[in-house]
């Protein structure tokens, strides 16, 4: 999944920009962006082991928690802040979202769409919490405590006066949706959405 996210993100992020990857794990995205692009990349990651792996790769990463530690970054201190497939695992998505757009000129946020037909169908037929590639956990072990649909997300942005500058939708085969009908009904057809936000 991430790989395709990465390509889209790489196209959005401009050369010579300051980038913060929130929840950067072992630094795969930062390394990917570093290849062929000149960026000043930083990371925020909750796991100490992952941070140490990032350091080994020459990345600058702070161990911390998106829910608590974004407040310490000054406003508009990054050109791009990225939160890839992590929003649903935060304790206060609304607060985090507002912090992202505060500290950056543009925030790139992607998340699994709980409104996708795949998930709807699973729930409808099986009647149990759906598991998928993007959401591979049982309901009682999942770190994904704030799942939402694309529609929900757009509503939240609207409520907080956050502008959606660009959006990308992925289908079940992890390809960018290009069909205009499916694009129109993205909340039904896409398994994941990626948004470029500005405030």
């Amino acid at each position, binding site marked *: 999944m991430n790989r395709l996210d990465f390509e889209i993100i790489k196209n959005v992020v401009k050369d010579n920009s*300051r980038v913060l990857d929130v929840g950067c794990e072992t630094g795969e995205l930062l390394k990917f962006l570093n290849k062929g692009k000149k960026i000043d990349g930083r990371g925020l990651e909750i796991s*100490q*082991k992952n*941070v*140490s*792996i*990032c*350091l*080994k*790769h*020459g*990345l*600058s*990463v*702070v*161990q*911390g928690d998106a829910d608590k530690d974004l407040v*310490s*970054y*000054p406003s508009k*201190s990054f050109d791009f802040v990225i939160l890839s497939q992590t929003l649903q695992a935060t304790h206060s998505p609304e607060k985090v979202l507002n912090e992202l757009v505060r500290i950056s000129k543009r925030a790139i946020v992607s998340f699994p769409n709980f409104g996708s037909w795949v998930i709807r169908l699973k729930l409808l037929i099986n009647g149990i919490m759906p598991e998928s590639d993007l959401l591979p956990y049982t309901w009682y072990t999942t770190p994904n405590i704030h799942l939402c649909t694309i529609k929900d997300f757009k509503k939240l942005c609207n409520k907080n006066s956050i502008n959606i500058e660009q959006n990308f939708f992925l289908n079940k085969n992890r390809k960018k949706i290009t069909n205009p009908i499916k694009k129109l009904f993205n909340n039904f057809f896409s398994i994941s959405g990626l948004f470029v936000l500005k405030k």
Partner: protein
Amino acid sequence: MKNSKKFALLGTKKSLKLDSGKNLRSFKIAYQTYGKLNKNKNNAILICHALSGDQYAAGQNPITKKTGWWSKAIGPNLPIDTNKFFVICSNILGGCLGSIGPKELNPVTKKEYNMSFPVITIRDMVNAQKMLIDELDIKKLFSVIGGSAGGFQVLQWAASYPESVVSAIPIATSFRHSAQNIAFHEVGRQAIMSDPDWCNGNYIDKKKRPEKGLSVARMLALISYLSEEAFQRKFGRNLQSKVSLAYGFKTDFQVESYLKHQGLAFVGRFDANSYLYITRAMDYFDLPNQKKGGLKKIYKNSPVKFCVISFTSDWVYPTKYSKEIVDSLNTVGADVSFVEIQTDKGHDAFLLDEKEFNETVKGFLKANASKEGF
């Protein structure tokens, strides 16, 4: 990893102006080096030792005959790899293993300084280290690394000489001494100064040593260096060579025996007056107070790459202080990384071969060395 007694005579041309306003002229700093300085002279790492440390960071300490205090971290293929780096460790100003300090002779009076030694600060120590680095003809240090009071020096280096360091690793440290830190030190100092053998600091003249006072100071400090869990794990309520309580005040518990032993061992290698001066220097450390605007102003536009490391069970300099440093560095857009190592070993964890800690230091240094081209 051989140790030989190396000294540098500093301040011969220009004296060292201390924070107190006094000057030190023609003074010795004792130091050790490990590994080789490369041709470009860009692989030098300065190790800053803590309160009770010394310049014998690796190899065998010629005084105690034990291995150096950081011999698990410094050496061939170790985190601070001497195959790659040229490692320098100097005895701090005010120390008692060869560098100028209270037990050395005052060139004017030809007698030991004792309590007439000027009160020194962390910044004074760093300024003396900078003179040593200049003397060694090294323009830029690849890294400055240190834990605890060594971490103070690292932070001070990055503040005073940002152009002379590529990277800085402050470990288990803080940017100022808290009331609790000062309180612990004051009890230690009072223990020393209320020992009749301290003789107002002139014990060398009187052929005495404030052994009781200094060992109590050390025992107290050791309690703070370990965590509650570590004490419990190591000693519990285990009895010392007895099957039952003795109903007296001799050593009943293993933990008592440990502290007494450590206290005595310390007395054998450390000067009481040095202990007073260095703890004072630590108490005086208040980095944000050095500039209006505090840490943010101090580190604004800093070219230094920071790697801040703290330990979960450190209650001398808890993680929150490291985080404050990290937050300030983030605020000014400095290049900062930070890890908090999970351990129950307390403040002393940085001396104790913690796997995740070693990995972090090793990875950070190696990645940055390859960026520097070696």
